[in-house]
């Protein structure tokens, strides 16, 4: 029998606010242990939480960017459980009235992954286990998170991978999170079940907690899919449990001991008040959202005639697309800019992190000047490419590398002389061309371009050569 994978995601995303969710300590990553702490975030008796306005705003932005409805009335609840990384023995979260509900993210295969809810909550501290002892650092305690919960809408690991990438991309675009999985600012819990293909009942699911790389997510899902199919095929039943994925062995294992009873006793946090969001506020926030990557990508394809794949590369990171948008201002052919970014600049900005920051020595304005010269037929594409490399090396504008003699191309008599030289010097190529080998013309063209040091207009050379040979 064939089995279908059914999976849903719960993704924790750390918000890039300046301060924690309920106190004014910094959210900066790193720092010496227990130096980003105050009485509130270590839960000293008598302290009280005060909600960071920006957290609510960022969560609403995340909701709008994923097509959610924003709740007019929301509230904060306590999720009670004891663990050394949780200083108050409860996590302040949202239970039955989350800020955002009923959204979706559309995948490239056209399927919509439905988002059940997005709520705000606080992060826990960090535990370090060494020689059997536990060391606790509360620097991360109280850092604001949004939890994005999907319906069980995934049917393949490809869909899962695309969803996580899209989610990352959207959150970075709207500037609410850097979504760095390796730093833990984005973590995924994945629930998985399998069912016979064609069935529409849900099987018993397991949940794999806290995965911090896309590759691990995919591997864990593949492993867990196989494992569950195995269990069922051997006549067994999948047990509902929480699992941990070990990437060294590529296996999952059960996580909870029996001492961890699972009853969170949610109730409204009496220390915090109601969150009301008017429709006007929602519209105000909507206006501040940048053009989202999916919309932008479609526009690049439609308006600028940029190939789908290139448009996707340009829009993957907000900074890149912003660079592109600035560079093409007033140009006739944005595609040239796109080619230069993807062909030349990306070779120097290799890692994902660097692309995200996109700190390039050539400013969009300088790139625009260079492309403008091509459009005005002042220089040739090849020369422009070489010039761009020099610009990237030095950070200087193109005028530094293009002297008077490079400009204006080559005049007609000079061109004729160069073509004559090429024809005379390559009788074989001329003969081949005359014999019907179109390609032979290219070596003659190359010869002329070399003589002109790239300044000649290839179109004009080509026409001249054909005219002279015939």
């Amino acid at each position, binding site marked *: 029998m064939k089995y279908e994978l059914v999976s849903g995601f719960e993704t924790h995303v750390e918000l890039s606010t300046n301060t924690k969710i309920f106190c004014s300590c910094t959210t900066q990553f790193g720092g010496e242990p227990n130096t980003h702490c105050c009485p509130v975030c270590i839960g*000293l*008796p*008598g302290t*009280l939480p005060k909600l960071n306005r920006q957290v609510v705003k960022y969560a609403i932005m995340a909701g709008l960017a994923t097509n959610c409805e924003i709740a007019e009335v929301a509230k904060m609840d306590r999720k*009670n459980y*004891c663990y050394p990384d949780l200083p108050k023995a409860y996590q302040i979260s949202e239970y039955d009235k989350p800020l955002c509900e009923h959204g979706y993210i559309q995948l490239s295969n056209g399927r919509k992954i439905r988002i059940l809810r997005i709520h705000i909550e606080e992060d826990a501290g960090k535990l370090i286990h060494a020689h059997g002892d536990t060391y606790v650092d509360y620097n991360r305690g109280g850092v604001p998170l949004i939890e994005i919960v999907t319906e069980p809408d995934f049917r393949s690991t490809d869909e899962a991978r695309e969803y996580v990438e899209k989610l990352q991309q959207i959150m970075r675009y709207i500037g609410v999170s850097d979504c760095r999985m390796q730093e833990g600012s984005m973590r995924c819990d994945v629930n998985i079940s399998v069912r016979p293909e064609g069935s529409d009942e849900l099987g018993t699911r397991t949940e794999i907690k806290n995965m911090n790389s896309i590759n691990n997510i995919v591997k864990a899902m593949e492993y867990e899919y196989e494992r569950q199919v195995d269990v069922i095929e051997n006549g067994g039943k999948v047990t509902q449990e929480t699992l941990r994925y070990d990437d060294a062995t590529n296996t999952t294992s059960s996580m909870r001991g029996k001492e961890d009873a699972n009853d969170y*006793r949610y109730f409204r946090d009496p220390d915090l008040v109601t969150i009301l969001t008017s429709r006007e506020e929602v519209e105000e926030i909507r206006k501040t959202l940048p053009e989202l990557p999916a919309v932008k990508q479609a526009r690049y394809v439609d308006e600028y005639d940029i190939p789908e794949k290139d448009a996707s590369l340009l829009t993957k990171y907000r900074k890149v697309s912003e660079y592109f948008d600035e560079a093409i201002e007033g140009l006739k052919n944005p595609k040239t800019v796109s080619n230069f970014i993807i062909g030349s600049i990306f070779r120097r900005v290799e890692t994902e992190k660097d692309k995200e920051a996109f700190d390039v020595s050539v400013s969009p304005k300088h790139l625009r000047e260079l492309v403008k010269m091509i459009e005005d037929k002042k220089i040739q594409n090849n020369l422009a490419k070489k010039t761009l490399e020099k610009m990237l090396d030095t950070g200087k504008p193109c005028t530094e590398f293009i002297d008077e003699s490079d400009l204006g191309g080559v005049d007609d008599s000079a061109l004729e002389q160069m073509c004559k030289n090429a024809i005379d010097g390559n009788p074989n190529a001329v003969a081949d061309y005359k014999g019907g080998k179109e390609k032979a013309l290219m070596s003659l063209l190359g010869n002329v371009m070399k003589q002109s040091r790239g300044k000649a207009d290839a179109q004009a050379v080509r026409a001249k050569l054909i005219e002279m040979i015939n």
Partner: protein
Amino acid sequence: MSEIKKIHDMLVSKQISCKELTEKYLTEIENSNKELNAYVNVTPDAALAQAEKVDAKLGKGEEIGLLEGVPMTLKDNLSTKGIETTCCSKILTGYKPIYNATVWEKLEGEGAVLLGKTNMDEFAMGSSSETSYFGGAANPFNTKHCAGGSSGGVASAVGANIAPYGLGSDTGGSIRQPASFCGIVGLKPTYGAVSRYGLIAYASSLDQIGPITKTVEDASIVFDAISDYDPKDSTSQGRKGEPTYNSLNNDIKGMKIGIAREYLEGVRDDVKEAVLAAVKVYESLGAEVIYFDMPSLKYALPVYYIIACAEASSNLGRYDGIRYGFKAEHYNGTHDMMCRTRSEGFGDEVKRRILLGTYVLSAGYYDAYYKKAQNLRGAIVKAFDEAFSKCDFVLAPTVPMTAFEMGHAVSDPVETYLTDICTVPVNIAGLPAVSVPCGFNADGMPIGMQLIGNKFNEAKILNAANAYEKAAPENFKETKWGVKL
């Protein structure tokens, strides 16, 4: 006359130096605290240092504020930087906070002289102060009786003149009940009038800090000083309107006093008599009395215990031996350490309330208990709204009886819960109420009544209470103890 004003005048007129005054109090604490057990931590060095500062100011001829140089005490659930704050629980022994409660920040800023921290029921859970890890506080009228609770230490100290005034907290009557038992004044402010920041939480939606004083005027002065909006407390609103002291004009002519019959049910005869006599006093002062029913009050007590314990079970989860306070000595693994620390560190009453709170919030019981209690809380709020459409304030006994004998309260938990019947509705509805002495029983133990006002109407109830105090001064009796000014 106001105790605070009397002391202020003595300081300003140089009848006594602040240091001498403070020493007097410290000496009397030394003399009587063994018997009263009002203080659990006396802070003479800090008190004398502050007194010297005040004397230096006076010496230079500078003006001082009304509370400046006046000694006082704080219930031991108010966070005091560098001064041990235990909630009278083993689990917080040795805990020296690294921050101040907002109320102490304010009073310290006004130049108050803190004599020490006073006794209370463990985590404010109790009605006699006897659940304290340090043993119960005694009643200054008769030390065989308890001072009440949970702010029993403050009431005992103020009643015994070993503190001119103090701050307590009131979750279900913990300011008013001990004030009533000790024959003094206790004000539970409107929820939100005084910042809770730094008050170690018992039940966050019910807790409120307020003054325990000798006179109504004193309560007004202290309330004015501590009732301010605090950006650290999301539920804080501060006092609304003028300082209450400005409106103590004793004019209550034409005021309507409401009496809900439910408040008089099950109240001991001597208490009822005293309260009804007080009503007569009000009538003689020109007030009008109306009677009505508030049927939803009969659910107040279970509603209170369900909500308070639910919140407490969550608030007290943090005592796990990792960040502060007591930690079990022997254990095996982190989970075992947390359970042992809590099992050894909490007393029986605290454990009972944590268990009840956990029960009413747990899966399968939440709707029947916690959710239903919240719904009834709304009904009680409405009942009071309706009452205040008919009257200016509600008059009721503070406690259905007088101070119990030591040892009585701890024997039967449920019976003890019943004694909170008159005080808890005010906390459920977030209202202000002031308890004032209104008589004595045959054994000479004080009886108290409370005036319950609409939200943020502290000025109105304090004015009415003050008018009563002036009309019936015989109910405000001195005890044999402490500093005689």
